[in-house]
Each structure stands twice: as C-alpha cells, then as structure tokens.
C-alpha cells in the first residue's frame, strides 16, 4: 500500500502554492511515497511520555529593549520589488472582482 496517494499529493501542491503539471505530480507522488515510507520509521521508536524538543537551546521569550532604531528607507526596501507604486509593493488582485 502506498503511504500517500496522487490525489493527496495534488492537494499538498495546492496547499504549498505550487502550480505543478501532471508529469511533475506523477514523479513527485512516487518519490514522496518512498520518502514518507522511509521517514515513517520514527513511529517505531518507543517514545511514549517523552516530551518533544522543538529547539536545540532552551530559550523562551527572548526580549530586547523597545527602542526606536533606524529601519530600511522605502526606496531600499522597494529596490528589488517585482512591481512598486507610491512607495508600496504593487501586487496582483487579491480579491475576486465584485459581482
């Protein structure tokens, strides 16, 4: 049995915002199936009641002083923008057109 179906892979591509073609989905479905089967070995490790570690260092709530400091001027922040207008990033439409 495969660990992951092609439909699931297509769904993951949508979630990941990757517009993949059919060939690429076929190829990835086979590879992901292999990789997931390999990494699924972690499930065999007896780890009941073991707390999770999310980070190498035991740091919590690192604060720094709330000081006003210089930030990037708009022209530098926008210098690499694919499109800019009026000191802002110009983006494609984000809402459907009104009916």
């Amino acid at each position, binding site marked *: 049995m495969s660990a992951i179906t092609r439909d699931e892979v297509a769904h*993951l591509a949508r979630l990941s915002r*990757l517009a993949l073609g059919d060939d690429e989905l076929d190829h990835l479905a086979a590879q992901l199936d292999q990789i997931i089967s390999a990494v699924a070995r972690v499930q065999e*490790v007896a780890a009941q009641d*073991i*707390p999770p570690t999310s980070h190498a260092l035991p740091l919590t709530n690192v604060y720094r002083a709330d000081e006003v400091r210089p930030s990037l001027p708009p022209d530098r922040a926008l210098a*690499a923008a694919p499109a800019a207008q009026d000191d802002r990033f110009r983006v494609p439409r984000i809402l459907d057109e009104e009916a």
Partner: protein
Amino acid sequence: MSELVKKGAAELGELIAAGETSAAEVAQAHLDRIAAVDGRVNAFLHVDAETVLAQARKVDERRAAGEELGPLAGVPIAHKDVFTTTDMPTTAGSKILEGWRPPYDATITARLRAAGLVILGKTNMDEFAMGSSTENSAYGVSRNPWDLGRVPGGSSGGSSAAVAAYEAPLSTGTDTGGSIRQPAAVTGIVGVKPTYGGSSRYGVIAFASSLDTPGPFARNVLDAALLHEAFSGHDRMDSTSVDAPVPPVVEGARRADVQGMRVGVVKEFAGDGYQPGVTARFAEAVETLESLGAKVVEVSCPNFVHALPAYYLIAPSEASSNLARFDAMRYGLRVGDDGTRSAEEVMALTRAQGFGPEVKRRIMLGTYALSSGYYDAYYGKAQQVRTLIKRDFENAFEQVDVLVSPTTPTTAFPIGERADDPIAMYLADLCTIPANLTGNAAISVPCGLADGLPVGLQIMAPVLGDDRVYRVGAAVERALEDRWGGPLLARAPELVEAK
C-alpha cells in the same frame, strides 16, 4: 600558481601585517587563481574583480592610517551565497532569487568586513542549502578538486571546493544537517559546525531555523578557529543567538593536546554502509588519539540511528514554513502577472517555476508532516526522537569529553550517481545530523585517503564546548601531518591552470 595562494589564512595575515605583502597583492593572486581554475571547478557563482580589489585597497589604507586590525585583515574569503551581501547578488542557488541584491548585509557579512576580510565572491550551493552535492543548484554543479568527476559535497560545496582548489584560504558555510562537515570531509579540508546560536543567522536565507548554523571552512584547524572567532558572538538581531562569550576556540586550536582527555567512539556509526577505507582511516585516527594520550572508550548512543528519519521530518517542516516567504510579491521572481491572474495564481506559478525539484519535494514533505491528521504521527514523533537524541548526548558526555565518528559513510561520490535518488543522497548526512538536532559543536578534520579520496574524522563536543573540537582536531591534525610529511591536501592532483 602563485606561492601566496598556497598559504594559510594566519600566515597571510602575518605577512600582510609585517608589510611583506599587501591585501591588494594577495587578493590579485587569488583572483588570478580563480580565473585559471574556476572554469572547471565552478566553485563561484559571482566574482567581481573590481569590488574585490577595492575592498583589499581599503584594508591596506586602514592599516597605513595606523588602524589596529585583527589577525585576518586583508585575508581573502569565499562567501556562501546564502549570506546576504549588499554589494553582490545573493541567490541561495535558486532561480527564484536570480540577480537579487539584498537591501542589507547579514551580520556575518558585516563582521567579515569589520575584521578586514576581503570577500572574493559568492559560492555555489544546493538550492536553499538542500542537498549534499551542489547538484541541486540552479546554476550547475561544483566539482571536487580531487576528482573533477565527483561532487565536492553539499550544500556548501562551492565553499569547500574553493578552499580545496586554493581559490581562497577561507570560506563560510551553513550546516543544517552536515552541510559544512560533509563537504569538508570529502574535499580534504577542515569544516566546523559551531554550537547552534553561537553564530548569527541574521541575513542567512533560512532553510530550517532550529538547525541552521553558520560556520567556517579552512585548510587547517587554526585558520578555521580564527575565522570562527572573527564572526561569532551574540547578535541582538537574531533572537536565538546565544548571549555568552565565544568559547576560546583559538586557544583550543593552539593548545592541540589530548593528554588525559576521554574520547568516545560512537558505536552505532559503523558497519554496513560504511566504505571499508573510511572505516580503516577512522580506526587509525582513533589509534592516533590514543597514542597522543587520550583515553578512548566505546560509547553507545542508541537513538542516533533514528536521527536521519527525524531530521527528514523536522527540516522539511521548517522549510515549508520558511520558504512561504518566496511569494513573488516583495522581491525575487514574479511569473504570469498579466493583469488577469490573482495573487494566489501568480504565487503558485512563480514558485513552480522558480524552485527546483528537491526544494519542491521538501516543501511538499514538510506540508504533509505538518498537516492535520499527520502532525502527531510525523512531526510530533520526530520532536520526541529529538529529545531522545539529546539524552544520548547527555549520557555520553557524562562519560567522555568528546565523541568521534567518521564524518561521512563514504568518500565523494560521482556526479549524477545519487542525483535522482533522494534517499541515497540523504544518507551522506547520516553521521552529522545528530549534532544539528541537539545544537552541539562538531568539526570535520582530514584523516587520510580511501581509494585516493579524502576521509573526514568528526569530533563532537557538548553545547558551547566548541574549543574542545578545535583542541582535539588540531592534535589529530598535527600528529597525522607529521606522519604524512605535510597536509593531506598536498597530495591532491594539481589542477592545470588555464592560460
């Protein structure tokens, strides 16, 4: 080849300080070497001679003006293309960032400049640091100077190739699962993964934020220590930066003795899958440590065998989140914005075109591991394994001062051999991953040749015990070079220079 490019960083720094040569002359010698060999090695993605010489002249002027400069002032360095640089493009090996000029310098870039290091250019890497060979770069593969048909390791393979090919005495890398130690091992040089948080991630294009660790490459242990010291230390711009003094790494490298130290051999990192020549060179390195007065014992770290699968859940999970920032809106590539498509459509088209196959695989794998219904079975479980590996290290370091293993199970593999077999590729990082999951310091130093190709010895120390890996690494280096009559790299074939 100019004699200047054969010299190490410490020696070059001394010669420049003594006025026997200048930063500009040293920079020119390295530019000439790059021009002569990089057409075949392909270590660099970007070199601009004018920018390099301007930096070098500025160092010479600072010195002439009487400024107090550090030991590496005027020494050239190759900089991995994952660190932002305002005066050079930064691509992370990806088409999605082709030609991008970052608006600010990474903290490490700024510290290199402050220390007077001369940045020769940006080095090739697996796209977004995902890979072990540079074959995942969008800009072609880098080649191993020992055998141009083989990979130089990865992801920091441009940086390892540059140093091994005498194009630079030093380079920077980042190590998320072995991306400094593995390329160092397979090219016969020194590479260090510092303690996590010991080197700043600010301005380092993120792959897996809880694992990413910048570190140095050099041709000897002392040079690596000098670079480590030059760019490390607390950074208020990185909230996971350790607010503690930099461990005395240069002192450790100079001390270079292991008398009375307890060295643990990781029992689990041997056997099937390990090339016989790698096993033999490793055993000799352990004997060398013993002959130098170290007390060697075997140590079991039973959960280390689970590190690889846990890593391939944790790292892709973090990557899928980190790489969401490449959304075609603020910088980088934008595809298909024809006035009719929505932002979401443009985003999906751009990402499909801008990312290569391995990056897509990992984003999808991470999205899967984090998705509802699978989270506990995969990501949650991997985090528990991470705890078990941490406990293995803690138990081991109650018995020994450092742990040792081969850095990689095999020597450099031929280009193309593992390119379309992700699982075979992932095995290159089998021995290096545990230290990433727990944040420990680790080094790879050359320990000989197997079938004519370099083998690396990995030395691991507790968190913030970075000085120990330098101390032990330098001791092994000294003893082995005495035996070999010179550095391992002196045995690499000469690269014929283009006229």
